[in-house]
């Protein structure tokens, strides 16, 4: 069964910076600790205002009162945009403060921003998702949509790598997806701990033996840039070319309006032209040192 998506709103009137730089208030209505340093929050608008519709792969700017604002990808179900879900690792000033948020606390949200995984264009194809670490977070909305529209796609394969079994995100969901006959889920860890009996090694090592038909495959990648470089190469070795590969880039972002200059990657302004790029469009600069 196909879930209808709320149409992405394209503003008819000009958007003014003085408004666009103001976050709207959201209450934390649910909080889940995913692992040691990673947590998920579900946000509900404080006022009557609705969250904007989002597409898988887009991001929001999350604001902690007086402390700062950071770009975080959306991790929830695009068919249920009223439940805004973000998964974040506590690494910086803002995210460490966000880690202390409790249900009932209020933060600010601006967005959604950026490009998305072009799932609608990929119907009928094998979809191979390659995620590393927290890179699974911006891909989860794509998985939700693929599962909801499962009949529209050929094979759906998830290759997920984490540092240790304890670092894995969304474990319960991974188990559920793995139990389905119509999804291929392969998980690997860099370092086995506890009673782990699964794959050990880099996620890129799963690519050579994953079940997909290269000529009819679309690959969606998110993870550390070095992981994506090797994943692109492993996919190319199997015959999945640059025009069949999409990846999500991380860059410093301040405004989300393609104005502040921070998120530039060669000629691309990642907050507007990305974060999701088709590989052939960024090939010239991807993997170049410190671009």
């Amino acid at each position, binding site marked *: 069964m196909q879930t209808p998506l709320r149409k992405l709103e394209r503003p008819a009137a000009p958007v003014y910076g003085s408004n666009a730089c103001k976050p709207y208030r959201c209450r934390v209505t649910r909080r889940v600790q995913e692992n040691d340093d990673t947590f998920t929050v579900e946000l509900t608008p404080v006022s009557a205002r609705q969250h904007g519709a989002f597409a898988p792969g887009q991001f929001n700017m999350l604001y902690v009162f*007086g*402390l700062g604002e950071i770009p975080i990808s959306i991790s929830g179900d695009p068919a249920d945009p009223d439940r805004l879900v973000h998964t974040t690792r506590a690494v910086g000033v803002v995210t460490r403060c966000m880690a202390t948020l409790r249900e009932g606390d209020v933060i600010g949200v601006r967005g959604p921003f950026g490009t998305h995984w072009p799932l609608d264009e990929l119907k009928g194809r094998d979809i191979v998702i390659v995620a590393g670490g927290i890179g699974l977070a911006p891909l989860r909305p794509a998985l939700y949509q693929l599962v909801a529209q499962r009949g529209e796609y050929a094979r759906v394969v998830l290759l997920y790598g984490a540092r240790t079994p304890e670092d894995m995100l969304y474990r319960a969901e991974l188990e559920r997806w793995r139990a389905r006959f119509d999804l291929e889920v392969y998980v690997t860890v860099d370092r086995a701990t506890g009673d782990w009996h699964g794959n050990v090694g880099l996620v890129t090592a799963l690519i050579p033996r994953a079940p997909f038909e290269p000529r009819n495959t679309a690959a969606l990648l998110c993870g550390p840039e070095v992981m994506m470089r090797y994943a692109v190469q492993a996919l190319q070795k199997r015959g999945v070319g640059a025009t069949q590969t999409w990846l999500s880039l991380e860059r410093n972002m301040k405004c989300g309006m393609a104005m502040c200059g921070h998120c530039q990657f060669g000629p691309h302004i990642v907050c507007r032209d990305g974060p999701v790029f088709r590989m052939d469009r960024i090939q010239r600069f991807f993997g170049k040192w*410190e671009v």
Partner: protein
Amino acid sequence: MPDRELDNRLLILEYADLQRLFDALHARGYSTIGPHIEQNVIVYSEIRTVAELPIGWTDVQEGGAYRLERRDDAALFGYTVGPHSWKRFLSPPLRMLWRARKTPEGFEFLDDSAPPPRYAFIGVRACELHAIQRLDAIYTGGGVIDDDYQARRSAAFIVAVNCGKAGATCFCASLDSGPAVGPGYDLALTELLDGEHRFVVAVGSPRGAEVLAELPHRTATEGEIELAEAVVAQAASQMGRTLETTGLQELLYRNIEHPHWDKVAERCLTCGNCTMVCPTCFCFTIEDTTDLAGQTAERWRRTDSCFSTAFSFISSGSIRTSAKARYRQWLVHKLAAWQEQFGSIGCVGCGRCITWCPVGIDLTAEVAALRAEDTGQAPAEPLLEMA
């Protein structure tokens, strides 16, 4: 050359009547900003009289060097450009975006925005007018409109000045952005110093015509028009630098990993001076703060520079840690990526980045060096080996 279409409207404003231009602008509510000497440098600040202009001064510029010298006449605009540009008035270096107060429901915005100032810019050079138009494309040409910029910009009355001399670091002629003032001004002046001190005035807008109508003026003679053309021609002949723009974008892209960047990095201090003085560098950062009690929060927009490591900081650290990467980002953005992003080259040839670089790094020389060493193709892609 002055714009041919406006030739039949070229007028003469006598030196003695120039103060009336200031007065007419004040009467219309403009705050007049113009060149003025502060700490031995010509900067742009609020001036109310002709007497505050750098009368009889000129500037001598070179890579990493700037000094003022006396001219042997009383020219009002007998110098080129200093470290300031008009961007500081159109997009202030530090601007509060909003204030908010903590409430039981999170926070609420305090509405205390003031209307943006109305400026009249006196002495905008050809390259600077182009620089303002570059900023227009960035702040008002995309999906989001910076309404504060737009308000300042549409209010701004522009009195342009044709350059009568070019400096040693000038290269606007290479970029078709000068020395003759192009469209976009309200009034454009050419200073004539042939014994009788006066200005040839071109009118560029209805409001320019309105203001000029209040001042005593007469039609310029053929001889005066020729003199004005000679003034600009002289500046055009004095360009101290050149920048070859043919195939520039491709040249830079295919040499993105050229070893020459290491040589620049040996000299570059990554101080960011070039970005601060550049009239088109537009990057800013966002700073969120609170008062000591944590009850009121403010969001500020502050000029930023791609030469800081913080500029590209992400969760795993800075993307551009090396000086080489940061200089390359600035130059390749300015001269190549800008063309794809905003439809024009990001440089207007004013030479400020050369003059104000403490070690005198010269982007025209760096481009020429890359061009000299260019092999016409990018180095072969090294093969990644699976770990």
